[in-house]
Every structure is written in C-alpha cells, then in structure tokens.
C-alpha cells in the first residue's frame, strides 16, 4: 500500500534528524516548517476526498532566498538571520494551491553569491553523494536535500548556474527555466536581469511536474511571460515519455580539462545517437569565452543595487556590517562599476557582449534542436580547500552563458567519476521547456 503524506513526511523528518546536523552532517536544511505535520494531515484529507491538486503528497524544500509566509528567509546570511517572511512568493502560492507540502528552508550561499555552497553564514553544505566535498552552489541546500533524501523535490534559484551546478555535483535533476517563464515575485533577488526560480528533483518527470505548477505569467513580475509543459497523457503515456524523433544535437566544442568527465559525456552522446538515431554535430560558440567576463560586471552591478535596501532599518542588519567576504567583494565590485567615471566602460560593455551571446545562441537554435555539454567542466573541490578565483569561475563557465541568453537548460546525472556524480547540461531555445524535458527524459532512459 502506498504511504500517505504524513507517513512520508515522518520518514523525511527522521532522515533530517539523523543526517542534517549530526550523522553525515549534510547541513542542507536550516529550518523545519513547524506546521508541516498539520498541513500533511490536511493534504491527506483532501486526497481521501479526491480533491487534491497536482502536487498532492509531494514534499518540498525551499531555498532560503524565497519567501514562505512565517518561515525564515535568511538568504544564508547573518544579515537576515531573524527575518520572517511576511508573505508567500508567487511560486510558493502556486505550490500550496496544488497541495505541495513545504518541509522547510534550505541552506544556500550567502545571498546566492557563490559556486560551492561554502559562503553560507550557517556553514557549508556537505555533498551527500561525496561526503567532504562541496555540494555546489548557490542552491546548495536545495540540491543536497533532494540528494540526501530529505524531501521529494526542492526549489532553487539560478543566476549563473546556481541550480544546475549543485544538481550536477549532487546527482539530481535541476532546471534553469527560460527567463520570464516563472514569476520571481517573492524571490530575494541577486541579479534581477538573470535570476530565475526553478525545480530540483530526483528525476526528470518530477522536475517537469514542479515546473508545470510554478510556471506561468504573473502581473506582479514585469518580465514574466510563462511557459508550458504538457503533463497530459496521450493514450496511456504522458507526453514527456515520448521520445522526440529527428532531433539534431549541437555538442559544444569546449576544452574540458578533466578527461574522465569528457569520456562519460562522449559515451552518453554516442549511445543516444545510436539508440534514437539522433544527429550529432560539434559546434563552436565564438562568444562563450566571454561569458564569465560578461556575467560578473552585470551581477556585481545589479547585486550592489539590490542590496541598498538592506540598511538595517526595516529588517535585518546593515549588510556591509554583517556579510561575509564573497558578498562584500560583490558589493565593492558593483559600487566600483557604478561609479560615474566608469559609466559605460564596464556595464555597457557587458550588456553589449550579452546581446552577442544571446544572438549566437538564437542563430545556433535555427540549426539545432538542443545544445549539449557537461554541466560543470570540473569535479567539486573539498570543503575548505583554498582555490583561486579563476578556478572558482570554472564552475559557471558552461552554465552562465545560458543565463545571459535567457534560454532554458537542465542538468541531469550522466555518471560518476571516482564516485562523484557528474551532470550533463541540455539547452533548448527560450520557452521550449516541453522539448527540453522530452530530450532529458530520453537521455535518462538510456
């Protein structure tokens, strides 16, 4: 007999009790929803009456930069450690309307500023699949929670790879939706022209289900347009299960220093080519090398701008007095770039390069259905290991271009190197999440 929501919640809460702060010390969950047990009971009652929504029984962790009424949206920072959300973000409202259960708030890099999950003021998140290694960030706790069996699904936010990078390292599925497909209302922003809220799950079908619920136009978010996935069954099979025919894949020609990652990737591509008769071609993206240099001036400037409200008057502490080194670096960087004498020198150059990257992807999608590459060109480092800023930038090298272009991308597990999971990134043109999920599901079936 299938377990009900209350029973499943109990199992997850026990697992959190065993391995979050003690045991494996994953440190993925910062706060448990005190009303979760009552809410699970209400959901089970609705299920019994046949009135429950699409997410009935699904147990979901939420990144700490998304507002959930009454829970702490600390953003992984001492600045907001006591900040209780006075309202639900639009994505949370949608989840609650469809009877998803919020189990608690997940750890993350401070204000989503990080690649590894180590910049959280509440400690680094341990990688459940490779203890002692970083989980990846910034949605570190969200991906680690799914990977450690603390929940069914999670919400994260992705500005340069913050869902896909930790999804890759933790061996789970993570989607960066098209810019504008999911409302950002209630997301504590890091870089408003790049941020997107997205789903993290144990498999592609669950990621598609959560995306289907949270996507859609919202008048409260000026750039929101919406996007749809077809969860409906065609005959006995959900549409996402149907393997698309005549797919043409562009494989990014990019130097991956770790040959073990490259080998796993090449094998997967060959397998798909053979089994599904898909066409595969190597492609060179001229502007991909400019992505990091383009991404950071935009992020620094927009982050500096959005942190000006954190002055300690209405809530929290003054940010410069309570933040950690990476957040401070970005505030200083944004402040420098915004100074009058630099006007046009950095930010405008970055916007120009961004447009070129966007155009290049657009042109490529005229010839290819999707673009594929490893999600991260390197393995995660050990927690606390000192690495250079250049090494840190490598984490986002293949994910940040897709935030700049605004297209949608998913990371799915493709294998392991030394028992550490590695992910494959599949990219489709803006608002083509349906096709993206179908291709990802086809790879998952190999």
């Amino acid at each position, binding site marked *: 007999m299938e377990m009900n929501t209350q029973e499943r919640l109990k199992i997850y809460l026990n697992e959190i009790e065993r391995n979050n702060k003690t045991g494996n010390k994953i440190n993925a969950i910062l706060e448990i929803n005190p009303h979760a047990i009552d809410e699970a009971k209400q959901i089970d009652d609705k299920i019994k009456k046949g009135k429950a929504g699409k997410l009935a029984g699904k147990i979901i962790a939420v990144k700490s930069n998304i507002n959930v009424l009454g829970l702490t949206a600390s953003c992984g920072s001492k600045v907001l450690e006591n900040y209780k959300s006075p309202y639900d973000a639009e994505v949370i409202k949608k989840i609650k309307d469809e009877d998803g259960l919020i189990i608690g708030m997940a750890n993350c890099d401070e204000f989503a500023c990080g690649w590894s999950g180590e910049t959280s003021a509440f400690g680094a998140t341990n990688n459940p699949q490779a203890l002692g290694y970083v989980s990846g960030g910034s949605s570190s706790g969200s991906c680690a929670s799914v990977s450690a069996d603390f929940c069914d699904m999670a919400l994260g936010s992705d500005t340069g790879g913050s869902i896909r990078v930790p999804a890759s390292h933790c061996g789970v599925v993570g989607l960066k939706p098209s810019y504008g497909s999911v409302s950002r209302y209630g997301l504590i922003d890091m870089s408003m022209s790049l941020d997107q809220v997205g789903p993290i799950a144990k498999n592609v079908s669950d990621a598609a289900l959560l995306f289907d619920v949270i996507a859609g136009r919202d*008048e*409260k978010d000026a750039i929101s347009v919406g996007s749809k996935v077809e969860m409906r069954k065609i005959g006995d099979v959900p549409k996402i299960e149907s393997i698309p025919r005549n797919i043409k894949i562009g494989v990014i020609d990019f130097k991956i220093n770790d040959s073990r990652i490259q080998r796993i990737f090449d094998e997967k591509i060959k397998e798909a080519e053979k089994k599904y008769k898909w066409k595969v071609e190597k492609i060179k993206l001229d502007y991909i090398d400019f992505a990091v240099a383009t991404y950071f*001036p935009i992020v620094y400037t927009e982050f500096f701008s959005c942190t000006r409200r954190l002055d300690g*008057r209405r809530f929290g502490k003054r940010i410069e007095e309570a933040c950690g*080194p990476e957040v401070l670096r970005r505030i200083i960087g944004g402040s420098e770039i915004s100074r009058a004498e630099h006007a046009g020198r*950095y930010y405008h*150059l970055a916007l120009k390069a961004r447009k*070129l990257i966007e155009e290049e992807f657009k042109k490529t999608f005229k010839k290819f259905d999707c673009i594929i590459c490893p999600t991260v060109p390197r393995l995660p480092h050990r927690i606390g290991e000192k690495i250079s*800023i250049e090494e*840190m930038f490598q984490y986002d090298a293949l994910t940040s271009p897709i935030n700049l272009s605004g297209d949608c991308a998913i990371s799915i597990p493709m294998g392991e190197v030394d028992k550490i999971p590695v992910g494959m990134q599949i990219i489709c043109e803006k608002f083509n999440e349906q096709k993206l999920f179908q291709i990802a599901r086809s790879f998952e079936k190999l």
Partner: protein
Amino acid sequence: MDFLWRQMSDKEKEDAKKQVDSIIDSFSKKLSTLKDKIEVDNSIERENFERSEGGEKLEISKKIMFENAPDKNNDFIIGEKKSWK
C-alpha cells in the same frame, strides 16, 4: 582565495577591494577585445504601466513585518532617529 564565510576585519575589507579591482580590470580588458557593433535595448513592457496592488491583505503579514523591524513604535517603523536641521 578563501570562500568560507567569516566575520571580516577592516584589513580584510581593504584586501577585498584590491582583489575586486584586479578582477574588474581583467573583465574589462577581455570585453574591450569585442569588435562587433551592436545596439542594446533593455526596455521592458507590461500591459498596464501601473501595477494594481490588489491581492489578499493578511493581518499576519503586517504583524510579521513589524516583528522584523528592529526599531518601531505602535504603528510605524522608525527609520532613523535624528534631530531635524
């Protein structure tokens, strides 16, 4: 570089500024090599210029908002206490 979170001293803050200056300079040099000319348009449109606030007004939201504020009076949040000049 140390990416672990920690409280920072004034000296560390000074060092952070130097690090950032060098990072921004390297980005700037890289971007300056772009030769293509391209127009950038960042306008965003929505149906109505002004957004209707509407929505549910929860009493609990007001309560939490006041609880979050470090300095408040009965029904207002105190931004800064200074004498008028």
